[in-house]
């Protein structure tokens, strides 16, 4: 089971528990039609919040990647280091890379003019 340490995720779990109770009350015996309608509305308020929380968590899933930027930067750095190390051993491949980088650089400077 995943540890839940996110505010919205925790609230979602709580909402599910509340919905369970609300549904139990909504279908209890001996309720008047008015009481049934009121409980139905109360249940719908909880369902609305459930949907809102899911939308918020969906947005957070996309945004969470931003917080992991440092890890991505480290990875890119590591890859660059590996690439440099490889280049020392493979002269020709490095030459190709250097040529492409040089041309890219020159074309970029032309485009900036």
């Amino acid at each position, binding site marked *: 089971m995943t540890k*839940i340490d996110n505010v919205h995720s925790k609230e979602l779990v709580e909402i599910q528990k509340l919905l369970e109770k609300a549904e139990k009350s909504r279908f209890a015996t001996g309720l008047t039609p008015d009481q049934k309608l009121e409980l139905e509305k109360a249940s719908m308020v909880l369902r609305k919040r459930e949907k809102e929380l899911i939308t918020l968590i969906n947005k957070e899933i996309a945004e969470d990647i931003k917080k992991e930027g440092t890890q991505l930067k480290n990875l890119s750095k590591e890859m660059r280091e590996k690439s440099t190390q490889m280049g020392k051993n493979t002269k020709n491949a490095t030459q190709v890379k250097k040529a492409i980088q040089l041309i890219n650089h020159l074309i970029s400077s*032309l485009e900036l003019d």
Partner: protein
Amino acid sequence: MALKQTRQLFLTPLLIALILQVTSSCATLSKEQLKSIETFSTACDNFSLYPSLLFTEIADVRLERGKFYAASLNDAQNRIDELNALHKAHEQDLLLAAKYDASLKILQSYSNALNLLVSDNRSKTRGTEFRSLGRTLDSLIIEVNTLKIFTDALPTGIAKSAATIVAYGAENLLKVKQHRLTRAFVSEADTLIQVLVTSLVQTLQDPKVAVMIENEKSALPANYKSFLLSRENTPVDPQFDNQYLELLDRCEQFTYSRGYTTSAAKRLAKTHRELALSLKKGKNIGELIAQLSKLIADIEMLQKQYNKIISLT
């Protein structure tokens, strides 16, 4: 403007001479290497179809179980309000899958570019096609960066490389030069593939995705119970029980789909690294072929998983 044209006039032949000189000592690709590139390209294209399906599937199951809840409401207006809210929420849910799809189109374009580079059918149109793919890849990367899905902007150097290759005359390239360019292209693309796959895997492994999966698993029986309780005095058609069981099965598949997608994505990045090394360093082709076999097996598992889900719907 005139200065720019003059600079281009003088620089272009210089650049062509420079690239031909520095690449002149590179060896051509072996048949096994060309075959490996083709196999990787197909695997890459196949893989790109699946990752966003997890989010689409979660959204679809959520919509279906929501219909059970809506059907449990007695008041007509309440039921309409709930169905409208469900429709709106489903659209929102699908946005995440769409964002995922945008980044996966890069993999598809890259796969197309690789196929074109190793194709035997050399023609005068190749340069035009490759230039067009370079532009497509560039626009897709820019699109993904605009969506700000990932903190670090995806590198655009790969598209520039594609354009550069064409800029000095891809139309007239001989096979030998074409192979050298393939080597450089794959090498340039490795950083892009690694960054992209890392980001895709991080999203899949986000604990919030697990929370969403668990929420569907617990909400489905609760919503179906409400539906049954609302019909306490009326016999319920067994087709609803079958529908419930089908949704339950789909919920149970979420965790497997997530796992298979993560494994295949990691394998894709690892295989690309092997491919780049094999082309760059002439590393033992046997290791690359072994990685490719594992990648194909992982993607086949993914295909089987989604075929199973499709058979449930």
